[in-house]
């Protein structure tokens, strides 16, 4: 299967072609959905216009191929974003319910088994007053915020749900997700500094301090996966796992190390040092009030979703299933759902960690990162190399 990214497409065939025909040579489900939406929506508009002004050019133009493709690309992005957004809300709901049961209470109870509470909370933060402190570095304050949220949303949309549900299929897929992930601590540092608040400054510095403890083991773990699969492309990695064996079995050490790193990567309890509410009030988010805080929280869940998705891609075989994975009915209806269920399962482990563990200290996380995670990831890499050299895998 040869995939081509949009950028490659533009470089190779020019901008005109992109509008004129589908950018996807393989079947792309969101694109297909988007085309169908536009065919009915644009068709309806064209029909209405045609009723009022018969035989006009606009109606013809609306349903012509280039316009349909153009709108389909926009709608496709919205479809993909909507799915990851709703799934993030579901994860939020999952966390609240599981945490509630762990703590001997019921969790949220508003509508649909408590799911509507997420929407209610979102609405509440949007209705709050938009408080902006006076003595701040305005440019960095706003840019830091929007880039943190923006990269989170971008990350979530970069995650392919299956080999037919993706925006772009990069050859360096995993690497780009990692690069976008690693951008956040820098932005948090800037945003924390710009707020002219001591708590947020310390929180921002902690984010940078935290980064050097988990980022390196995480990249070494990535090297293990990539070596085994022989590609950075997520599709190839999943296909390799489907063909041979889920990497969780040969790389069991890597799997557990990766879960710890992923919790740190998404800055959740017990590694949420940059927003430790017991000592730093709200950490780097202290001066971001109301809607801004709500969006940051949403961004956090986007990042948590991507961190879980990374674990699933690297070790749990992505959207594949061992026995029924090759069947036609499975491939037609289930890969995306199975993938999201796996993500929810990994997130369940995150929630259990949050319920059971207190927050660690900065020096402790550095100790864990350099004295435990680092050697473990190197051992994992050595095992992978051994398996590759001996030809077992």
């Amino acid at each position, binding site marked *: 299967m040869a995939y081509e990214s949009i950028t490659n497409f533009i470089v190779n065939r020019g901008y005109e072609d992109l509008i004129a025909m589908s950018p996807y040579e393989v079947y792309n489900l969101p694109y297909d959905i988007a085309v169908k939406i536009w065919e009915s929506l644009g068709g309806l508009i064209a029909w209405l216009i045609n009723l009022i002004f018969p035989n006009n050019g606009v109606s013809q133009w609306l349903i012509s191929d280039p316009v349909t493709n153009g709108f389909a690309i926009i709608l496709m992005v919205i479809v993909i974003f909507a799915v990851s957004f709703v799934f993030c809300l579901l994860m939020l709901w999952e966390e609240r319910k599981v*945490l509630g049961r*762990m*703590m*001997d*209470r019921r969790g949220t109870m508003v509508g649909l088994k408590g799911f509507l509470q997420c929407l209610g909370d979102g609405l509440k933060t949007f209705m709050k007053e938009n408080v902006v402190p006076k003595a701040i570095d305005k440019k960095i304050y706003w840019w830091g915020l929007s880039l943190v949220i923006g990269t989170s949303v971008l990350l979530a949309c970069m995650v392919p749900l299956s080999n037919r549900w993706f925006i772009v299929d990069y050859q360096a897929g995993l690497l780009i997700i990692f690069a976008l992930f690693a951008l956040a601590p820098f932005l948090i540092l800037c945003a924390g500094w710009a707020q002219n608040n*001591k*708590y947020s400054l*310390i929180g921002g*510095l*902690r984010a940078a301090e935290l980064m050097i403890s988990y980022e390196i083991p995480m990249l070494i773990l990535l090297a293990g996966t990539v070596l085994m699969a022989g590609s950075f492309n997520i599709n190839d990695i999943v296909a390799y796992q489907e063909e041979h064996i889920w990497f969780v079995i040969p790389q069991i050490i890597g799997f557990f190390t990766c879960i710890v790193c992923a919790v740190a990567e998404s800055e959740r*309890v*017990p590694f*949420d*040092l940059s927003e*430790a*509410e*017991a*000592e*730093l*009030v709200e950490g780097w988010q202290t001066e971001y009030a109301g809607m801004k805080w709500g969006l940051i929280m949403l961004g956090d869940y986007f990042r948590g979703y991507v961190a879980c998705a990374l674990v699933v891609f690297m070790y749990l075989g992505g959207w594949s299933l061992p026995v029924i994975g090759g069947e036609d009915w499975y491939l037609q209806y289930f890969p995306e759902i199975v993938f999201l269920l796996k993500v929810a399962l990994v997130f369940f482990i995150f929630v259990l960690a949050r*319920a*059971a*563990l*207190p*927050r*660690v*200290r*900065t*020096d*402790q996380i550095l100790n864990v990162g350099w004295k435990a995670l680092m050697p473990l990831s190197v051992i994992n890499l050595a095992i992978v190399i051994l398996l590759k050299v001996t030809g077992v895998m």
Partner: protein
Amino acid sequence: MAEEKMNSDKMWVTMGPQHPFSHGLWTLRVEVDGEIITDAEPEVGYLHRGWEKECENRTYNKIIPMADRLCYSASMTWSHLFCKVAEEALDIEVPERAQYLRVVADEICRIQSHLMWLAAVGTDVGNLTIFLWALREREFMLDLNVRLCGQRLTTNYPRIGGVRNDMPYYFERDCMRAIERFEKSLWDIIRLTDDSSIFVGRMKGIGYITRKDVANYGITGPAMRGCGVDYDIRRDDPYDAYGEMEFEVPVLKEGDAYSRYMVRIEEMFQSCEIIRQAMKKLESIPKNAPYRLKVPKCIPEGTHMARIEDPRGEGLMYLVSDGTESPYRLKVRSPVFVNVSASKHMVQGVRIADIPAIMAMIDMCLGETDR
């Protein structure tokens, strides 16, 4: 010159009075060098209500419910302490039944106060599960309070010369059930805390105080017993029926935050033991025995002092009476007020993240600190 330049990198961070770690209205100003604390300064007084002065305009009976308000979670011991100082002044002996009832009420109060502390420790180290589990157990102790006194927190139970009412029906049964349940579920909570290496790692090796500091600052209570001073007023200067109780005073030598934590946990188990013994003794006392004496309204002229083992340390009241219905002066020695003065010493050299863990071990209660 070089040193001056170094100093310019330090900054003062004001933690409080509205801060998640402070559990009330007080401020801890800390000077930090990066994350390391180089200096600290506690500021209390935001909750000053003029309690001592208000007492001078009230009759002795009216001060009992006010003493409840000194500390929301240790109200029983404070009203008990006030009744005790008034009894010292009147020189009367409380009926035996009342003595045991007071012991039971005090220990229930101690358990629920320590559970409130444990819940606060949970939030301070960033785990809400500990918080909710501890508060769930505390609810059973508050239910016992409701059975005995009709109130959850501000109990208004002790009276000068006894207690307000006798035990209600089946109180023994309820009490025993609650204690048994509590001992089991405390082990559940310990599995979350002591068995978790992260929790122990957060507590161990920070906030050291030595026996010398205890003497210099006047630290009392679990903080004192956590650094090797074997002293408990309940055992060494027994009041009411504590002289007849057999219990151990937990003492640890390390003097760090974790030992203070361990002392408090062990104290809760010992309180259960005391309640069991007191309940057994209460069975042997006839049901119609008096539980309250008639006492005169006025207290004879003189100065009197009484002290008691509060959940947070040594509570002391000093009463100057002029022979009228109300006191001339009533001075309260609050254990937390004294303990918090050592906070500068305790947080020296630790990280910002350790401050909540260390300060949680003081178990701040601003009602009695600022009075």
